[in-house]
């Protein structure tokens, strides 16, 4: 009996110590929601985090659930209702969700969750088939100026980051963004086939989707949307060619609403530990994701300005009135 008592007391004390220094010790079981079907960017981010969180010791375990639908707006609505005040619940989200909330007029926005950190970014690549007469971003701009309807763009879903990039390029060229002839494809695969076979003038997607084809010489990279040249990418930026478009498809991690300051701090520390770990850095390199780590209040401020930029852009391509 006395042994049991002493043991129990020790456990209580240890528990208290653990709780107060939660930032140092591995947290309990984390639950990460990927608000999309298995296979997509958010799902891959969630599953990569699962791997890195456990391998780096930042968390004891992590479980991934998929709640697909409507650009993540179904996931976020469910997250806000179901995970309220849960200090172990996380949700992946990003640029596309921000756009979907605006175009779908979703009642639940990103202001309802607790921002933790921006983790990755994928810069957009503009490509043309190898035999295209268009050699540089300047040629593309010239073609756009001649007749925006004749320049067909292949990219992801309407209103997504690819579509917005096409709109931004038109705008930078001084062409009415509502006049662009953008052809949305579901998933990168179909779009890539259309670009390779020369059905469309140009293609837009994350660099990773085109990497193999660019290296094997089947596609020509005519511009990246990064602020300066990237170390792993052999090609110019749009900006250095006088087309002032800088945009990244960022992905981030959010926590549940109504967390206490301590709970938020503990999650910030867990994610920071993961983001700085070798395991996470290896994954970033493998997937070709840029490390755009930005956390806490700075990330919350970024969300506000980014939301205005995205809303403005969706308005100029006519998807939000």
């Amino acid at each position, binding site marked *: 009996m006395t042994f049991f008592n002493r043991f129990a007391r020790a456990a209580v004390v240890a528990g208290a110590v653990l709780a107060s220094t939660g930032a140092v010790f591995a947290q309990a079981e984390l639950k990460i929601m990927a608000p999309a*079907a*298995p*296979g*997509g960017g958010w*799902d*891959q981010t969630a*599953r990569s985090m*699962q*791997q890195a969180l456990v391998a780096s010791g930042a968390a004891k375990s992590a479980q991934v*659930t*998929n*709640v*697909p*639908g*409507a*650009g993540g*707006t*179904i996931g976020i*609505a*469910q997250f806000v209702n179901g995970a309220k005040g849960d200090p172990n619940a996380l949700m992946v989200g990003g640029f596309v969700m921000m756009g979907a909330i605006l*175009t*779908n007029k*979703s009642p639940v926005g990103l202001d309802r969750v607790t921002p933790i950190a921006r983790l990755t970014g994928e810069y957009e690549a503009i490509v043309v088939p190898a035999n295209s007469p268009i050699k540089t971003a300047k040629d593309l701009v010239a073609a756009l100026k001649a007749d925006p*309807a*004749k320049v*067909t763009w292949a990219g992801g*879903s*309407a*209103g997504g980051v690819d*579509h917005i990039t096409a709109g931004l390029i038109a705008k930078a060229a001084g062409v009415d963004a509502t006049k662009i*002839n953008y*052809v*949305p*494809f*579901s*998933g*990168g*695969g*179909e779009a*890539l*086939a*259309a670009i*390779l*076979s020369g*059905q*469309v003038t140009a293609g837009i997607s994350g660099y990773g989707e085109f*990497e*193999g*084809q660019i*290296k*094997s010489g*089947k596609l020509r990279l005519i511009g990246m949307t990064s602020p300066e040249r990237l170390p792993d990418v052999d090609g110019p930026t749009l900006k250095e060619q006088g087309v002032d478009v800088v945009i990244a498809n960022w992905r981030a991690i959010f926590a549940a609403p109504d967390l206490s300051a301590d709970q938020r701090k503990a999650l910030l520390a867990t994610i920071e530990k993961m983001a700085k770990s070798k395991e996470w850095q290896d994954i970033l390199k*493998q*997937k070709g994701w840029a490390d755009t780590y930005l956390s806490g209040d700075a990330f919350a401020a970024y969300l506000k300005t980014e939301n205005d930029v995205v809303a403005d852009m969706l308005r100029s391509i006519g*998807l939000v009135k």
Partner: protein
Amino acid sequence: MLETFAALGNGFALALQPDKLLFALVGVFLGTAVGVLPGIGPALTVALLLPVTFKLDPTGSLIMFAGIYYGGMYGGSTTAILINTPGESASMATALEGNKMAKAGRGGPALATSAIGSFVAGLIATIGLAFLAPALVEFAISFTSADYFALMVLAFVTVSATFGASRLRGLTSLFIGLALGLIGIDKLSGQQRLVFGVPDLTDGVEVTTLAVALFAVGEALFVASRHKAVVEKIEAVKGSVWMTKEDWKRSWKPWLRGTLLGFPIGALPAGGAEIPTFLSYSLEKRLCTKPEEFGNGAIEGVAGPEAANNASAAGTLVPLLTLGLPTSATAAIMLAGFQQYGLNPGPLLFAEKPDLVWGLIASLFVANAMLLVLNLPLVGLWVRLLAIPQPWLYGGIMVFATMGTIAAKPSVIELGMLLVFGLMGFMMRRFDYPIAPVVIGLILGPLAETQLRRALTISLGDPSVLVKSPISITLYVLAAIALLAPFFISALKNLGSNED
């Protein structure tokens, strides 16, 4: 050619080690076990089991993937045949004849022709993958939106094979499906259609939910409604559980034809597994020497679509391995699995990591053989499932249908749709409307619309683009033949009888 054989030999040396065989067996077993749950398709199965493979070496995990993939595909067919509940939309065509066979006590041969047909198709398609991938991928890329639209037209023409007795009722069902297909965000303009402010509807009606609701829930309600009137007698086993000589004779040609349809269409970036299974079903119905058996359990109607289904699964690996293009959700998850080992599928993969590629291809062979080894002995056991008293069996079906739907998309509205469509399936059975055309309409409608509008957007509105390429012209000619041939044949028959 010789180099290919040597490389493949090396691949087999890797894949045939005892521990690798064990991984294949575990993969097939897990895949089949999860795949038999209605509503859980291969994509979710692979995603759920991905963490299991984190700890394995690359070859081991690729082999396990292959096993899970094939196992998941086959698991869906088992429930389609036995309890009229396709686990995913690609095994819907199998349910049409397979379940009729099962109800007539021929569930054993149906399962066997499905397993052996899957094996044969998988084998041929994997050989195709090994030797034809580079050529096939050129063909796949040259498929334009206009060609896809022509393929959809051909598919629409052949849908009539699933109409049953009345053409009017069949068309009604098809149009219900087409109408359901309009729900959701319009892919080309990004605008919402028929969503009524419900966010869950913005992605449209999930094909799996509709298929599971119409087939499984509808069937359960229908059986429940009639249990006092006439007890439908299901004989678990009549005759042998194995295929007879005649079954073999009637199965082998459909297997080969199904493979020929499934592999190239599966390799198309937007081909998928559903279209080849429907095409195969209607082709077999046309070619069958005993057309009166179709609708009452013709073995050709199981053999062909099953082969097409598995061949298209191998087909999706063509763009994945040669271009790095994941063309299905399952392929996207497999891609994530490859990348975990620093393996980047793409044009350079065959040159950079030959041992892994050939190891994967060899493990597809091994997984395929393992599927047969595991499932043929189980046929007798699966068939016993039908001996379960009906209230228990259908109660269980309802539980698993609900669980599967919730697992794939956890939302109350999804569950509501399952029930509403289930009731619709019940009413359609009650008033003798065919249910397959509804699901086909939901699949083909949005595809046809998107491809047509995409083709016209690219051509700046010029409709002549639709008949410009040799591929689309060929497909339209085939569609015309499929449409008109029955009239000519009956006219010829009349001519013949007049002469007598």
